[in-house]
């Protein structure tokens, strides 16, 4: 396995020969087959692959929202048995509590945290500032743009200090400009609050720009096709996008994904 590109060498997330079969109404679907990954503490890992290759399935299993059919997942040596507060999740659909204000949404995530109320309030305010939403504390989610809503979701997923942040195409519904800004914001937030990130996307630029390591998945069944260390120095800004290294990584990953897409298309032909 490729050694982690940055972060501590200690493994935080150990995914060991994990498989997932969906027993639906029709024939069983093998969503994921024998996926093994070791993710080091504070590493930023992006997972890319064609649609339906099992990216969300893998992320949900790490989150404990879904159980593997075979294999095991361990976090810090302890097997994952269900969702827990050591992991935060950001969904593609904004998934905010629309009946609560921005502040209310973020504070809601701290309900299970034992901490004096004043300290909680200060922490919530700090995260509101961190994601650039100062002045919008009392707004309701429906009054905000998509990018702003997703910033609330990021703050909500980080405020209780989980060790791991799981993100499933978090910027997939945003327009290109907003997405670029959100990527930079995410990196800034990540510099300030080091967590281990698993970031699912189908946008190769996004993956290379953000991650220390890009996992390219093969389709049908979902497998790890390639594990690429992105050794572009940090801190990164949008200028990286025209860097020759960036282009080289991008070309390699695009070629891999194209190969997978062609494979899937060939399988779908009668």
């Amino acid at each position, binding site marked *: 396995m490729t050694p982690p590109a940055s972060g501590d060498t200690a493994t935080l997330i150990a995914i060991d020969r994990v498989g997932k079969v969906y027993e639906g109404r029709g024939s069983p679907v093998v969503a994921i087959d024998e996926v093994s990954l070791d993710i080091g503490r504070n590493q930023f890992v992006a997972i890319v692959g064609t649609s339906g290759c099992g990216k969300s399935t893998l992320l949900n299993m790490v*989150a*404990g*929202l879904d159980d593997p059919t075979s294999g095991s997942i361990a976090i810090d040596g302890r097997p994952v048995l*269900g*969702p*827990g*507060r050591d*992991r*935060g*999740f950001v*969904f593609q*659909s904004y*998934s905010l*509590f*629309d*009946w*609560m204000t921005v502040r209310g949404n973020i504070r*809601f*995530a701290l*309900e*299970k945290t034992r901490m004096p109320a004043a300290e909680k309030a200060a922490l919530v305010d700090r995260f509101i500032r961190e994601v650039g939403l100062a002045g919008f504390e009392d707004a*309701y*989610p*429906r009054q905000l743009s998509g990018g702003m809503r997703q910033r609330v979701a990021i703050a*909500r*997923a980080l405020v*209780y200090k989980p060790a791991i942040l799981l993100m499933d195409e978090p910027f997939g519904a945003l327009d290109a400009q907003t997405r670029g800004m959100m990527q930079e914001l995410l990196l800034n937030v990540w510099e300030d609050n080091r967590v281990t990130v698993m970031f699912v996307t189908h946008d190769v630029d996004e993956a290379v720009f953000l991650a220390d390591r890009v996992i390219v998945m093969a389709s049908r069944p979902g497998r790890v096709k390639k594990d690429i260390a992105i050794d572009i120095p940090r801190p990164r800004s949008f200028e990286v996008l025209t860097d020759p290294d960036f282009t080289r990584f991008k070309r390699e990953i695009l070629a891999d994904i194209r190969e997978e897409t062609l494979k899937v298309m060939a399988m779908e032909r009668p």
Partner: protein
Amino acid sequence: MKTDTIRTGTKAMPPRPRRRGLFRLRQDIPAPIYSAAGIAVPLVLLLIWWAVTSLGIVRPLFLPSPMEIVAEGWRQLREGILWADASVSMYRILVGWLAATVIAVPIGVLMGSYRIVEGALEPLISTVRYMPVVALIPLSILWAGIGDVQKILILFLGTFFQQVLLIMDNVKNIDMNLIRAGQTLGMRNIEILMRIVIPAASPGIWDTFRITIGWTWTYLVVAELVAASEGLGRRIMDAQRYLATDTILFGTLFIGLLGLLTDVAFKRFGRAMFHWNR
């Protein structure tokens, strides 16, 4: 320049003017016109009604004139009948609907949240809701006597089964990721139901309340069909015996009016309560 294009073109068509006016598909129209249309239609119908009766085209026995209806309403108001009837009926509606709602909300929420509860109850409720409530009057009397309880039971039966299925749908319509967000925050199922599922579904559930209380109103006459001495529905059934068409029509219109007022009240209240929902 212009002559050029005309010469080269086959036959220059004048640009078709963009269609304006009130009949564009799905396009908004000025609010005053929208409201005016809603007032104009009933007014025209009223005018036709008035013309038909005052010209003697139909006999008053079949269709009394609007003025006679107003006079009948005034008489009932003066004699205190209207208030007595309305208060009794509204009490029955309220209790019948509330009883249905208090049971339908928890069951609907559970059905919408747990597949096992849905599987256990949905086939049964879907069947039972098609039973004709009128046919249950004899049984309801046997079970609940001839007092208020029997009327309330009929209103309950007419409301509950529809309501529980609608609430189940309201709950199923919320974004699954809200529940998953709660799970990743370490919340237990009961907390997720109370603090995420119910608030998220509440605008939809409120709309179900509004719709179902309208249905309860329509069951009023059925509920007061037998063994009642007072009530808006009772008044109508009594009038049938004396062919008092003015009483029948006034009673029907009055029930419709109360139903409409209930609807408007629910809408207003809902808009204030769920302001966060746009």
